[in-house]
């Protein structure tokens, strides 16, 4: 029997607005923009939290006030597990766990259940550092306690067939955890041959993940970053095959968030806001809502 169709929510990551972020846009400006394009969930980065990692109660109240006012729910919380925090040494396992738990608590406080987690890497291919299981496994009971899913990101240039993805799946199966999985970034499906000047990014020669690859990891996909570098006037991303990515997720019962993430490198606010709207026209057409 085929699974019931999924009903993912359309969202936007504040990463998309990075050129505005260190200027004068306020948190409410972003909520207003999301609501304006019909997005119903939001992704923030840990660094979007005022006075991170210790927001005031007034800021937390403001956060929930904005969610209520604009009809937007917390979708994803992007954080980093930086074990190379100091130049002269790595964090100990306990220090790494403590920093993870600090983000779990904060995500929980702000209503997030999905994390985009960057595990320390030493390679361009995002291979996790040796020994990553030690601190991630020790953090799992806390992820359960604070009701969050650690979502290790699969992002270009990593493809789904990269050995470390299989290593993560082995870890999930061995521990039986429901609190570790993948944040799937659609950049892993981009066709390098179709990247053009409008994508605002240098050409790459990385391979692309396939539909079959996606089908193989679906049970472990807990959060999605709908990455795009350029949306054309006909509402397509020329280098990323959205036309089968979104239907494959829906047909297989995916009902978490699909978060738009613009990474095209333009510094023009108006252009980016238009690109996000083009992206949401495409998502609306693919989802039917």
């Amino acid at each position, binding site marked *: 029997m085929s699974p019931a169709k999924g009903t993912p929510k359309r969202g936007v990551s504040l*990463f998309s607005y*990075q050129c505005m*972020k*260190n*200027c*004068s846009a306020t948190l409410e400006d972003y909520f207003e923009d999301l609501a304006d394009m019909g997005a119903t969930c939001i992704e923030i*980065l*840990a*660094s979007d939290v*005022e*006075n*991170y*990692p210790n927001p005031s109660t007034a800021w937390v109240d403001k956060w929930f006030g904005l969610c209520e006012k604009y009809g937007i729910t917390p979708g994803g919380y992007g954080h*980093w*597990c*930086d*074990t*190379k*925090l*100091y*130049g*002269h040494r790595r964090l100990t396992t306990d220090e790494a766990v403590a920093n993870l738990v600090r983000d779990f608590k904060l995500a929980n406080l702000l209503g997030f259940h999905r994390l985009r987690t*960057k*595990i*320390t*890497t*030493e*390679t*361009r291919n*995002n291979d996790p550092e040796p020994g990553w299981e030690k601190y991630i496994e020790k953090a799992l009971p806390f992820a359960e306690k604070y009701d969050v899913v650690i979502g290790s990101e699969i992002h270009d240039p990593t493809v789904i067939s990269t050995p470390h993805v299989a290593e993560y799946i082995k870890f999930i199966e061995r521990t039986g955890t429901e609190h570790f999985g993948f944040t799937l970034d659609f950049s892993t499906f981009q066709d390098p041959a179709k990247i053009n000047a409008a994508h605002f990014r240098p050409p790459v020669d990385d391979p692309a993940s396939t539909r079959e690859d996606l089908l193989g990891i679906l049970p472990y996909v807990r959060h999605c970053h709908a990455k795009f570098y350029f949306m054309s006037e006909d509402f397509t991303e020329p280098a990323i095959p959205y036309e089968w990515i979104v239907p494959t997720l829906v047909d297989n019962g995916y009902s978490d968030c699909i978060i738009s993430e613009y990474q095209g490198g333009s510094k023009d606010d108006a252009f980016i806001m238009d690109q996000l709207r083009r992206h949401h026209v495409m998502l609306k057409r693919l989802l039917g809502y």
Partner: protein
Amino acid sequence: MVEKEIVQARGFRNTRDAKGNVDGFQFRIKTGYYKGIWLSQFRVGDAKVDGETIAREDVIWEINGIEYTPDEMLLIGDTYWQVATPATVKIRRPGGLEQGYHTVGVSFGWYCNYQAPERCHPQLGTNWAGYYWERELLLV
């Protein structure tokens, strides 16, 4: 308001000691990165004024109202520096700078966990848009 430029126009002025004597000058920068960083991830190099180099050891960095030497910051992994909060770069110089235009600049970068060593500058880590930033500013 934070300006789009890395070196900020506002905040460029002479500084005074407790007795009111001009003892140096300061200017402000932001990283321009998409996220904040822990102080221990920040790396700085030398500063410059009108072509003259000022060694990194002689530059004081004020972040969130607290002054640090470059080496002190390397050990502080629990204080977060937000993207929209400019840092103040302070340089000791009895008498300060004269009224008028001056070109001031400083080198910096950062290390984050997802940056592979081969993509990093050996001392300054990463700074996608370049390591040295300067701007001609008017001292009132």
